[in-house]
C-alpha cells in the first residue's frame, strides 16, 4: 500500500468563516476541515481517512491572532499557531499556564504550523485506531488496545467505555483549568461551550472527541479574566521531550492568600491530561485543597486523592504513581 502520497481531494481555500461553514455544510460527510494539517495529513497519507473535499482554514485572517477583550479576558483565534500562543506577551504575562503548555507540544516546527484549535480538536492517538483497524472508535465492534496482549501503556485510567483512548492534547488541560470558553460557528450560527464540556468521552459519542458537529468550525478560545495572573503549574511527562504525546500532564490554576510560607489556597482548578478520553478535572483534589494551608501535607493528601478510583489496563499501572506525584508537585510548587 502506498503510504507516501495522500489520496486525491479537491482543495478549497475560503477567506471567511462563513465561506468555510458554507462549504463544509455542502460537502457533509465527504468534507474535511483542515487547520495546521499535522493531524490531518497523517490520516490522509495512511489512506485511513479519504475525504473528497478538504477545506483549508489557514487563509481565514479572522481566525488568527490574540486579542484582549473588553471584559478583561483574552480571545485567541483558533488558527493562531502554538508558537504565537507560547510567545505572546499577553498570554505569558496573564495566562502563563497556557504558554507553558503550548511550549511542550510536539516540536518547534510543529508548533510553528500547528494551531491551538487543531491541538484541541486532534483525534485520538491510540495506535490501533490510527492504524486503520475496525475498532469501536472507527465504527467497528472491537477494542484492540484493551485485550490481554493489547499494548495499552499510553491508554486510560478512567472513563473506559469500549474505547480506552486518551485525550492527547497538552493545551486542553490548561484550557479547562483556565475555565476557557470555546466559540463554535456552524450552519445554525454561533454557540459557546465551556472547555470542560467541549471534550466528550466514548460514553457520549465513541466516534469523536469533541462536541463539534459535522460542518461546525471552532473559531476562537476565550480565556476569562477570573484566572488572569493566578498561580499556575504545568508539567508534562513523555518518553521524549520532543514530539511525544504526554504519558500524563497536569495543569493547575490556583489563587492563594496569606504571607509566603503560610499561604492558604482560596480557589483552585486542576486538570490532568492523557488519563481519560477527556481532560480529567480533578474535582476531588480541588475539594481537598480548597481552604487549606498550602503545605507539603496538603500536597501529599491531594496526590493520594487524585488517583482514587483509577482503573489501570495491563500496561499502564505506572500512570497511577505518576499522576499522584504530578498532583503533589502541582499543589506544592504552584
Amino acid at each position, binding site marked *: 500500500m502506498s503510504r507516501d502520497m495522500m489520496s486525491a481531494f479537491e482543495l478549497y481555500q475560503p477567506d471567511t468563516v462563513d465561506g468555510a461553514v458554507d462549504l463544509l455544510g455542502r460537502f457533509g460527510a465527504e468534507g474535511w476541515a483542515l487547520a495546521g494539517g499535522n493531524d490531518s495529513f497523517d490520516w490522509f497519507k495512511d489512506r485511513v481517512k479519504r475525504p473528497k473535499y478538504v477545506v483549508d482554514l489557514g487563509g481565514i485572517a479572522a481566525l488568527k491572532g490574540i486579542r484582549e477583550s473588553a471584559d478583561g479576558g483574552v480571545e485567541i483565534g483558533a488558527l493562531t499557531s502554538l508558537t504565537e500562543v507560547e510567545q505572546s506577551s499577553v498570554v505569558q504575562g496573564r495566562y502563563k499556564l497556557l504558554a507553558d503548555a503550548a511550549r511542550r507540544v510536539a516540536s518547534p*516546527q510543529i508548533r510553528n504550523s500547528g494551531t491551538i484549535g487543531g491541538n484541541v480538536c486532534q483525534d485520538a492517538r491510540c495506535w490501533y485506531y490510527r492504524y486503520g483497524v475496525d475498532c469501536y472508535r472507527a465504527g467497528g465492534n472491537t477494542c484492540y488496545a484493551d485485550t490481554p496482549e493489547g499494548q495499552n501503556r499510553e491508554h486510560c485510567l478512567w472513563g473506559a467505555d469500549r474505547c480506552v483512548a486518551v485525550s492527547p492534547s497538552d493545551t486542553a488541560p490548561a484550557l479547562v483549568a483556565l475555565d476557557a470558553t470555546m466559540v463554535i460557528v456552524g450552519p445554525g450560527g454561533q454557540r459557546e461551550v465551556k472547555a470542560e464540556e467541549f471534550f466528550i468521552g466514548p460514553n457520549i459519542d465513541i466516534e469523536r472527541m469533541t462536541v463539534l458537529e459535522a460542518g461546525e468550525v471552532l473559531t476562537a478560545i476565550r480565556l476569562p479574566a477570573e484566572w488572569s495572573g493566578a498561580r499556575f503549574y504545568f508539567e508534562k511527562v513523555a518518553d521524549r521531550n520532543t514530539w511525544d504525546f504526554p504519558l500524563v500532564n497536569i495543569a493547575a490554576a490556583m489563587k492563594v492568600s496569606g504571607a509566603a510560607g503560610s499561604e492558604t489556597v482560596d480557589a483552585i482548578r486542576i486538570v490532568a491530561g492523557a488519563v481519560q478520553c477527556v481532560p480529567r478535572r480533578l474535582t476531588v483534589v480541588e475539594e481537598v485543597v480548597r481552604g487549606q494551608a498550602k503545605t507539603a501535607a496538603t500536597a501529599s493528601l491531594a496526590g493520594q486523592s487524585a488517583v482514587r478510583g483509577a482503573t489501570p489496563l495491563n500496561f499502564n499501572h505506572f500512570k497511577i504513581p505518576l499522576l499522584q506525584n504530578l498532583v503533589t508537585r502541582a499543589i506544592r510548587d504552584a
Partner: protein
Amino acid sequence: MADNTNGRGYPEPRFDQFVSKATSRRQFIKGVIFSGAAATGAGYLVTLGGCSGGSGSASGVERLLTLNVNGQTRPVDVLPNETLAMTLRYKLGLTGTKLGCDRGECGACTVLIDGVANYSCSTLTHAVRGRPIMTIEGLEGPNGELHKVQQAMIDELGPQCGFCTPGQIMSAVALLEANPTPTRDEVRHALSGNLCRCGAYDHYLNAVMRAATGERVSQA
C-alpha cells in the same frame, strides 16, 4: 473517451504510457520531460502514484500557481494534495530538502516559510502560494559562498552521514535570524525538531554556536 473515462469527466491518468517493460530508462525520462510532468532532478522523478489527473481546478484551487522559492519566482503545476516537499524535490529539482519520515517526525524536510522553520512534508504547497520559501539551496551567497552556518558545520565537523544536515541547518538559520546570540540551550531547543540518527547532536550544537560567535567551539 468510452474506454478511458471514469465517470468523473476526465480520463484516468495512464502512467503506463510512460513506463512499460519494453521502455528503456532513457525513453522513460524523455517521456516524462516531454509530457511536461517535471523538468529537473531526473534521477529523482516519480510518477506521483495515487493522485488523480484531470483539471481539479474546475471547482477547487487553481493548479497552476507561482511559488516564491529562494528569491525566485517559480511557476509550477501543483496537485491539491501535494506537499511542499514533493513540489520542491520532484517538480523544482531542489533535492537539498530531504524526505525522511514524511510524517513530521524527523525534521529532514525543514524549510523556511516567511523565515520560520516548517516541515515541508506536512505543508500543502497550495497553502504557501506567494509566501517566501527558503531551502538549503537558497543559503548560497551571490558568488557561491557558503552561509556562515554551513561553513561552521564544515569547520566543526558537524554532520556524520549528512542526511539530516540540510534540515538542521535550516532550523539553525531560522534561530539565528530571530536570535543572533543564542545560548547553547536555546540552540538545543531550536534544533529539537530535527532528528539525527548518527547522534551527532553535540557536533551540530558546536557548529551553530560557532556560527553565532565566530569562535572555535570543539576541542582539538
